[in-house]
């Protein structure tokens, strides 16, 4: 026997209690990681280089207010822009869904949109040409196609929730490899036709020539339409998404506040039970002291035990969350509300830091008691 094995034997002395302690630590850290992941997903938009290059132009009043189609001629003349297309959020209810459709449908000018979707893979040249040629066709993200078991050539029906028209679209191609492989894109012309050519679009979507050029482009666009009947707000795709986040308002703060309470509650309870486990062996600690164990050595014994249990819990809870979220289809489970659900190294780091703190705190009370109590007092305590 040596000291580490003595520590291990002590920790496992009451197997049920050790298990319960480890499980409650694991549970609290699993929750911590889950909340962190969810919060990150809600507040931190996808951040690739492209999202700074791509620009969204909306009506200054709000996203819901349409823009005149004639603005295109003005935008076409603005320097620093590689491509521009109408980009109208159709927001229809897919026939297979009852209440809520998790993927977006955008009306675009297919020819003009090609540079903007250059990162999309899986669509052949012929399919792209077929899409451009057939105004009732669309291209669809692979995630959505997989979810509903759709393939090229299938037809999809939509009920308009924002626009007063329904759609029937033929799938010309299925793409993947973009930041969001759920969306569907179809012809703005087709939408215009169904609406009786109102001469409006939802937003403009454009590609800046370079990252350096992007802020200049947004400035130029904002200025070009200042003091017209339809003033615009141009911003990078990233800034646009961040704008959504700000609309969540107090809920965001509330959820982060609650995750702190959650973790605090479970730590409180766990620390109490774990330190109780050591407090109960007070008499034994006094005996160890009598036969020559020094304070320092007893501290090591106590700390190693609670630290070990906490770390094991962290391994189970945080590691479990990591393994779970890496291996399940979170998109399917949450109806597309969450896309990535990625556990970052920082979150794992946080979970282990919390576990370390927990181990330390659980050891603290018994350690203070051991330091304070003399051997004689310790021997007198019965339990």
């Amino acid at each position, binding site marked *: 026997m040596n000291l580490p094995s003595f520590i291990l034997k002590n920790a496992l002395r009451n197997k049920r209690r050790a298990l319960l302690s480890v499980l*409650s630590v694991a549970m609290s850290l*699993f929750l911590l990681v889950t909340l962190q992941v969810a919060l990150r997903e809600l507040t931190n938009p996808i951040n690739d280089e492209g999202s700074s290059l791509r620009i969204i132009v909306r009506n200054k009043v709000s996203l819901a207010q349409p823009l005149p189609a004639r603005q295109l001629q003005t935008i076409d003349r603005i320097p620093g822009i590689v491509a521009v297309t109408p980009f109208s959020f159709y927001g229809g209810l897919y026939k297979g869904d009852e209440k809520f459709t998790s993927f977006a449908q955008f009306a675009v000018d297919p020819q003009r949109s090609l540079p903007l979707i250059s990162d999309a893979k899986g669509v052949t040249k012929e399919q792209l040409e077929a899409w451009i040629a057939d105004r009732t066709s669309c291209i669809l993200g692979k995630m959505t196609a997989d979810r509903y078991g759709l393939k090229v050539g299938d037809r999809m029906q939509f009920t308009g929730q924002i626009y007063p028209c329904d759609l029937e679209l033929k799938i010309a191609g299925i793409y993947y490899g973009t930041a969001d492989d759920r969306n569907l894109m179809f012809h703005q012309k087709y939408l215009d036709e169904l609406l009786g050519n109102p001469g409006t679009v939802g937003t403009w979507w454009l590609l800046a020539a370079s990252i350096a050029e992007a802020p200049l482009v947004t400035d130029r666009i904002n200025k070009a339409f200042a003091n017209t009947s339809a003033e615009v707000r141009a911003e990078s795709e990233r800034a646009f998404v961040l704008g959504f986040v700000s609309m969540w308002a107090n809920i965001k703060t509330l959820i982060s506040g609650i995750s702190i309470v959650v973790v605090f509650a479970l730590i409180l309870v766990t620390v109490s039970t774990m330190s109780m486990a050591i407090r109960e062996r007070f008499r034994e600690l006094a005996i160890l002291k009598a036969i020559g164990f020094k304070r320092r050595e007893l501290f090591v014994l106590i700390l190693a035990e609670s630290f070990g249990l906490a770390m094991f819990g962290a391994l189970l809870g945080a590691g479990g969350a990591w393994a779970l979220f890496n291996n399940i289809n979170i998109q399917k489970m949450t109806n597309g509300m969450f896309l990535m659900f990625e556990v970052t190294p920082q979150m794992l780091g946080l979970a282990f830091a919390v576990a370390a703190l927990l181990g330390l705190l659980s050891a603290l009370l018994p350690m203070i008691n051991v330091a304070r109590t003399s051997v004689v007092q310790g021997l007198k305590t019965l339990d």
Partner: protein
Amino acid sequence: MALPLNYSFRNALVRWRSTIATVLGIALVVFVFVLLQSLAAGIEKSSSNTGDPRNIMVVRKGSTAESASLISRQTLTEIRYFEEIARNENGEPIISADVLVLASLPRRDNSGEANVLLRGVTARGMELRPQVKLAAGRWFEAGKREIVVSAKLAKRFANFGIGQSFKTGSATFTVVGWLDGGGSAFDSECWLDADECRSTFERDMYSSFLIRPTDEAAGEKLITRIEADRRFKLKAEKEVEYYRKQTMTAAPIKWLGGFLAVMMSVGAVFAAMNTMYAAVGARTREIGTLRVLGFRRRAVVAALLLEGGLLALVGGVLGCAIAFYWNGYTTATMGMETFSEIVFEFRVTPKLVLEGLAFAVIVGLIGTLFPAIRAARLPVISALKSI
């Protein structure tokens, strides 16, 4: 014979350190549960609080909300003279064709912009919504770029003070009054003249109709008549029904509340079990003695369950009390239907309090059950031998 209540109570006090931790832990679990549910309750309450049971709301079929609905002017002229619609003293049909516009406006604390729901409303529309009162200032005048904002929104958005003005699109509106929706969904709206609204935002279409039928039966008839007409593609229902269904925002919060509650309570049960196992372990001899004295197994189990349930109940009461601190506190988020900022209050309802308490007691009882059974199963002799 049962053990006296005092036995359970005093035992909980003896282990005060772990007792406090357990009570606080359960209190926090209940707090999180009640708080999140009260948030959802607040959203639902503000929806269900809205509307007049006599009114009929008409929107385009397929629209999730008024703000996403479009109805042509021609439809108005056709529906306007349906005989089911009541007339006022001047013989005009009581129907209000509203225009809803989302305006992205800056917040007061410079934390970015959020959508605000602007309602272009007619005199009829105001008569049909008597629950909306003027809180300060005056109503807007027709033909002027004046606006009355919700007093609750005024606390959250820049330039919403009476006399101040803000620009949206190409127009500048002057705030002339604050409205009070009486805890309804109207507390999240700003009202302006319907014609002014249509011209400013270049809206040719209406968003919704609000109609007062002559009586209940006429209302039913009107609903059938509008829905059956294939030309319109409209959806008609009672105004209160329409608002009651606006629960998309509350649903995920409820779900989150439930999820957290379940996960946390599992953790809390583990902890409570640990505490009670330890309590039983430390009292083995005492329990043996009780058995020798003639107390039955079920008396021991009952006393321990009582102890655990009591602890949890105290935690539950504490948790509800902390959550109650937020009762009536106004907060806001983005409404999932209107896509605009909705203001509502935390509502800690009696039902939620009861649910919270029941929840706590269940956690306490589950946590105690196994340790209690273990205590009861201990053979009397071994209990007495153990030191």
